[in-house]
């Protein structure tokens, strides 16, 4: 195999590695945003559900 093919492959590897590195950073940031939002929303949801529980049961009867 010629050296030029190896060189092209090396550059492709570098580009993909950089792409993965960027993806890692983006996913990491989105993960923490989602984590905090889900925890906050779920706690709020639980408070609402507890408040509605009694009325809700009657509505289904």
């Amino acid at each position: 195999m010629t050296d030029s093919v190896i060189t092209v492959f090396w550059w492709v590897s570098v580009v993909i590695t950089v792409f993965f590195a960027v993806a890692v950073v983006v996913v990491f940031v989105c993960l923490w945003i989602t984590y905090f939002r889900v925890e906050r929303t779920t706690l709020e949801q639980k408070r609402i559900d507890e408040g509605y529980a009694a009325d809700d049961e009657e509505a289904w009867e």
Partner: protein
Amino acid sequence: MAAEITMIVTLVLIWLSLLVSLTTLGGAIHFWLRRSQKLVHITPLPSYPTVTIVVPAHNEEIVIAQTVRAIMNLHYPADRVEILLFADNCNDHTAREMRSVAELPQYRDRNVRLIERTGSGGKAGVLNDALAIAHGDYLGVYDADAMPERNALYFLVREAIANPFKYMAVFGRNKTRNARQNFLTRCINQEIVVTQRIQHCAIWHMFKIGRIPGTNFIINTDFAKSIGGWSNGALTEDTDISFKIMQSGKLIALAYNSEAFQQEPERLRDYYFQRLRWAKGNYQVVIHNARLLFRPSNWRVKLEVLYYSATFFWFDAAIILSNIIFLTNICVLIARLFDHNLSIPFTFGDGNSSIMQILLLNWMLMIILYVLQIFFAMSTQFGQATTEQIWIGLASYFTYSQLFILVSIHAVASVFLDAVLHRNGSVWVKTKRFDN
């Protein structure tokens, strides 16, 4: 030269598969960023279509009582629900357990039918029998080990009536109820969460493609009849009917709030044979539908065939090739301790060290992305994103995930031999249940 081409082809195949995975992950991130702040309100529906719930059970005496009780307690008007409990070819006390719950005083006025079935066709056969006698507008399916949460059916119906002419089926998600039993169930839990919180959400969000998961779903009864119901004896009847629905141009909608708890295998042997059945079933469906890639057919079907091919064919082929390269080099390196004249077969010649350095970094980033994907899926579920999950994710990369290679090789060989030897490859191996 052949060695270098093999290495390059393998890596390109792996990168392409990862591109598919990253696209899916991107779709899921967008989906959850938009929904993670939404509160869920249980408000009365504009109408309550009738639903026939089917529970196919084959020797399920250990888990069936809990499931029937959970179905009886579903938050949906009782007079709009018909329940068909199928004890399918049972030689244990499944029917007795079903009856014991159905006859409890609080459930006496419920519309419940217990059918002790002796026919063939497996689960698909049961569903077809149910389809023939169901009175509901929708047919809902819960496996014997699937305990729906109280609002599971409500969310399914709410989604179905949002677009009743397009959404012919709606599916929810299944959670592992024995997730903390051992390392295997912890890994399965992660896999299930990733599948349902990332793959299912992303492909619905991006392409409006849904996959019936086998349990916790409803399907329009008339529509199911019009497409001929389920394929009797199919190993993965859920994948099979999903393709049929998409081919008809209708949609399988996702109701991500509808949740059911299901039991996963706790022993390696049970896990292996369950996944072998799934892999074989999926191979059969993909091979059967591969011709649709080259014929006029629904674009969603083409995309799904490509997606399944990516997972079950080219990614597998790449990983197997990659492992062969790795193991061959390791063997030669060991052999070189005894014979210094041996040369390492898979290298890039003079440029080897610089390429290997960059590929090592590439591999490390792949592992980090794998763990991040798991942790992202966990973060969409309250209380699941713990540091323990990171370590389990990391350990599963080198252990649990590698099992998939064995399962795939076994499944491909089995499908191939079934075809060559004309043997019946659609034999179900029942997943063992546990009393927990």
